[in-house]
């Protein structure tokens, strides 16, 4: 059986918050939060442990490939060095995108009047990072396998973001009728 690393509750909560931001429907750059989760988990578990477990995982994939003749992710990411190289290349780009996003004050991209230069710059930067990031997702999945966070669930409050509130409304839930409390008090009196 694989060894599962227990993670401290404070760090666990931070990670879950970041995962909530990643899973939320704000429609902006989300890899930044995923990379944050990966970095914090690697430092908490220890890089040596992660490397040894990664090598074991790669061996398993290699054996599976030999047996089934299906091409696995072993063909793409053979060593930990390759993965770290990809992540290191990705890190400055993602942080640049995040800084560009933070500069925009209203976060409304349909309105062209306010801060057009900043919004255009942000849109340009976003096009440089493709959503097909195999290495990032594989490392995330692999770290979840090792750690005790795999049994956790993300609370629905963590998914909500203050920006773009119109997308955060759940279409399957009917809105509750709001009662004005001040009127009730008037009736009683």
């Amino acid at each position, binding site marked *: 059986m694989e060894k599962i690393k227990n993670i401290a*509750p404070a760090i666990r*909560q931070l990670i*879950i918050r970041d*995962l909530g931001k*990643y*899973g*939320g*429907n704000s*429609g902006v750059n*989300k890899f930044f939060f995923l990379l944050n989760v990966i970095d914090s988990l690697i430092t908490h578990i220890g890089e040596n442990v992660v490397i040894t477990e990664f090598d074991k995982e790669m061996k398993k*994939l290699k054996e*599976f490939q030999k047996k089934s003749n*299906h*091409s*696995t*992710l*072993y*063909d*793409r990411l053979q060593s930990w060095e390759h993965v770290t190289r990809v992540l290191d290349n990705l890190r400055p780009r993602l942080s640049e995108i995040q800084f560009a996003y933070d500069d925009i004050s209203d976060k409304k991209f349909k309105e062209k009047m306010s801060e057009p230069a900043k919004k255009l710059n942000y849109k340009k930067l976003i*096009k440089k990072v*493709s*959503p*097909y*990031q*195999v290495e990032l*997702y*594989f490392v*995330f*999945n*692999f770290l*979840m*396998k090792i750690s005790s*966070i*795999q*049994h*956790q*669930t*993300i*609370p629905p*409050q963590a*998914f909500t973001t203050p920006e773009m509130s119109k*997308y955060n409304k759940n*279409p399957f839930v009917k809105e509750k009728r709001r009662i004005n409390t001040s009127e009730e008090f008037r009736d009683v009196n």
Partner: protein
Amino acid sequence: MKIIKNLMTKKLENEEVFSKARRRQFSYEEHVATYMMALAYLGLNDENLERKKVVFKKFLLATGKSRLKYYKILLKFKQAQNNTIITALDEMERERENQTGDFGSLYRPFTIGVSSFEFEANE
């Protein structure tokens, strides 16, 4: 892998929300995110990944009718991607059934300690 299943289901929900709002780029990105998570979970390789990357970049840079043309090409990939997502979700369900017991979340606002503890037994 409870947390990855949770994220995948949320991403699928987001995809539907964006597609209803006619935000093609966002909805497709959410779909790709679920697909990549499924691929990583299964450990399988996608041989068409480079081609997909190129088409998606062209879709982002194009405007007007050509944008729609590239979007139609991306939709052709979607069916095969959906199959891998479904197989990954099935695999997760099988894994959950094989487990003897599972601990629920400790997080719940305005509650402290034992009162927020949940124990979920498999059916």
